[in-house]
């Protein structure tokens, strides 16, 4: 071995690993972790919106209240926007009075007879919006009261786990036998919208929960499989009028942020299956313009705090330099101000997911969703100071990093739920005896030292 040439090195290296093989059970453990990680990724991808909305809606201090836990119920009971300007109540097909007048003229000329019938209009919605093939579904319940109607449409091919979708309709122009019916609301027990509103002047956020039955593989039938949550803001009739939209991964809690509009629009949220059909749908007319959402007056209920103030970063009991960095990280992430974020860390020593010693900023710039979890975790307290050799005193957010998962307190469980983790996710962490979610560290001098989105 003294005479080390390349050929000899090759031989030695191959000899060294001659009997190295995959350990028994490694495949099972690895695949299990992969599947679990996918669950966590799906959850983490919506953490920030849920956290922010929870903070905006009820204040950081009341986030931990068990009263916050929503129940899956009819969409009509969700806290829909109650402020703003929306002159036309229709959300489909027409979204303004001019469009409705045009349709009424066509109906008067003998065209579009289904539009003069609430059930017919609901069926058109099912075909054109829900993607249900004609003949595959029916109207389960019809309640017509003068110029208002409620129709539930059901697709029997989905089976019991998928309940009917409720369609609210109204005659918004002419009333009576030949008046055109318009859809004014759509809701499904599968989708709950917890909160919707303007987060800042430059962003609009919606967040909610899905029924657990959709996430339970044992309840999913062979004939359908949910693949994602479609969220879209639509301003008109055609598909081109979808001004923004996304497909979110399936998760018990979800959230979505988009730039606000200054024109009437409708938010459509659908759970779509692998054939593009809607298993559940909710449509919400949006107040416009969002910037006009008023802040509460002093006489407003304490349960309705300002919708424009972000939750405070929890910097209690940390040094001033650490606190300042935490606040700047929070602000930088919300604003996606990468210049600011870069100024808070040393790329040569910063630890992040890439694990390759590289500067994290380019990667974050390419995929800023990596940062989504940060505002939420900064609203929780940090750990007690930790002395790490070579790194000095570190404060890790959230404090759950240092929790004893074999003996979780109610508060810790509530905080994990606040971060968006389902009961199943928490069980996994208990099993692993580790916090597996996102965490970051800031040292006592205010240097941002790491950010890991998940894992052990």
């Amino acid at each position, binding site marked *: 071995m003294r005479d080390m040439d390349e050929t000899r090195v090759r031989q030695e290296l191959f000899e060294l690993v001659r009997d*190295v093989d*995959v350990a028994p059970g*490694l495949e099972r453990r*690895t695949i299990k972790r992969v599947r679990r990680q*996918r669950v966590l990724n799906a959850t983490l991808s919506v953490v920030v919106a849920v956290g922010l909305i929870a903070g905006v809606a009820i204040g950081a201090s009341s986030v931990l209240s068990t009263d916050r836990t929503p129940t899956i119920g009819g969409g009509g009971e969700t806290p829909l926007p109650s402020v703003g300007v929306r002159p036309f109540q229709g959300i489909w097909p027409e979204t303004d009075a001019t469009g409705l007048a045009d349709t009424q003229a066509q109906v008067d000329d003998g065209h579009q007879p289904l539009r003069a019938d609430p059930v017919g209009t609901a069926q058109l919605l099912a075909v054109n919006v829900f993607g249900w093939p004609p003949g595959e579904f029916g109207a389960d319940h019809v309640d017509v009261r003068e110029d208002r109607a409620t129709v539930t449409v059901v697709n029997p091919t989905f089976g019991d786990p998928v309940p009917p979708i409720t369609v609210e309709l109204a005659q918004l122009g002419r009333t009576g036998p030949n008046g055109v019916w318009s859809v004014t609301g759509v809701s499904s027990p599968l989708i709950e919208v917890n909160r919707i509103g303007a987060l800042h002047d430059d962003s609009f956020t919606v967040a909610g929960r899905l029924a657990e039955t959709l996430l339970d593989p044992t309840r999913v039938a062979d004939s359908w499989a949910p693949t994602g949550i479609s969220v879209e803001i639509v301003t008109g009739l055609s598909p081109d009028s979808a001004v923004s939209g996304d497909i979110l991964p399936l998760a018990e809690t979800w959230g979505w942020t988009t730039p606000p509009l200054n024109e009437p629009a409708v938010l*459509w949220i659908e759970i779509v299956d692998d054939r593009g059909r809607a298993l559940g749908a909710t449509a919400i007319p949006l107040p416009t313009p969002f910037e006009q959402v008023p802040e509460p007056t002093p006489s407003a209920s304490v349960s309705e705090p300002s919708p424009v103030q972000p939750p405070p970063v929890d910097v209690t009991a940390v040094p001033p330099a650490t606190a300042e960095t935490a606040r700047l990280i929070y602000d930088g992430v919300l604003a996606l101000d990468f210049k600011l974020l870069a100024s808070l860390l040393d790329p040569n020593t910063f*630890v992040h997911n890439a694990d390759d010693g590289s500067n994290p900023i380019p990667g974050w710039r390419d995929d800023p969703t990596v940062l989504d979890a940060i505002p939420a975790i900064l609203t929780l307290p940090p750990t007690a100071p930790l002395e790490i050799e070579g790194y000095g005193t570190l404060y890790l957010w959230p404090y759950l990093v240092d929790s004893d998962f074999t003996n979780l307190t109610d508060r810790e469980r509530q905080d994990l739920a606040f971060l968006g983790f389902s009961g199943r996710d928490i069980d996994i962490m208990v099993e692993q005896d580790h916090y597996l979610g996102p965490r970051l560290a800031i040292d006592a001098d205010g240097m941002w030292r790491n950010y890991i989105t998940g894992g052990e």
Partner: protein
Amino acid sequence: MVVTAERPRTERSDGGRLEELFRVHAPEATRLAFLLTGERALAEDLVQDAFVKLLGRFRDLRNPDAFWWYLRRTIVNLSRSQFRRRKVERAWLATQRPEAAAPGPDLGERDRMRRALMTLRPEQRAAIVLRYYEDLSEADTAEALGIPIGTVKSTVSRGMDRLREELSRDA
């Protein structure tokens, strides 16, 4: 509104693909990780971490057919950073839950090579393993390590010098 956006693939659509990828690539990944870490238990952890990291986001890979390329690069990156990461994140945990670092059975002559490899700096070890075990060109090694070709040459050269020195000392 018509839902026409691209649908994300789900777990249900994997159809055993995860298991297949693991079975095809795990043996070679384990051997590579062992060469880079010198410890079987650590190699297992590293392979597991790499698969989790990669398969967890497999749908996002630009070229899933190049899975081994991604996996190899991930393993190398993880191995290079493991000590730094542990310092930051787990040093204090390790004191609470010490884990035995079992190097594996005594392999005699082979163990001398293993120990010699472990004296190299992580980037030297990675460069030598990629060049002479994975049989990558200098250019491919540079790409895998994310460093210039010139740096690969100098790193391999210094690593080889160090290997000779260590093995001659052992002899």
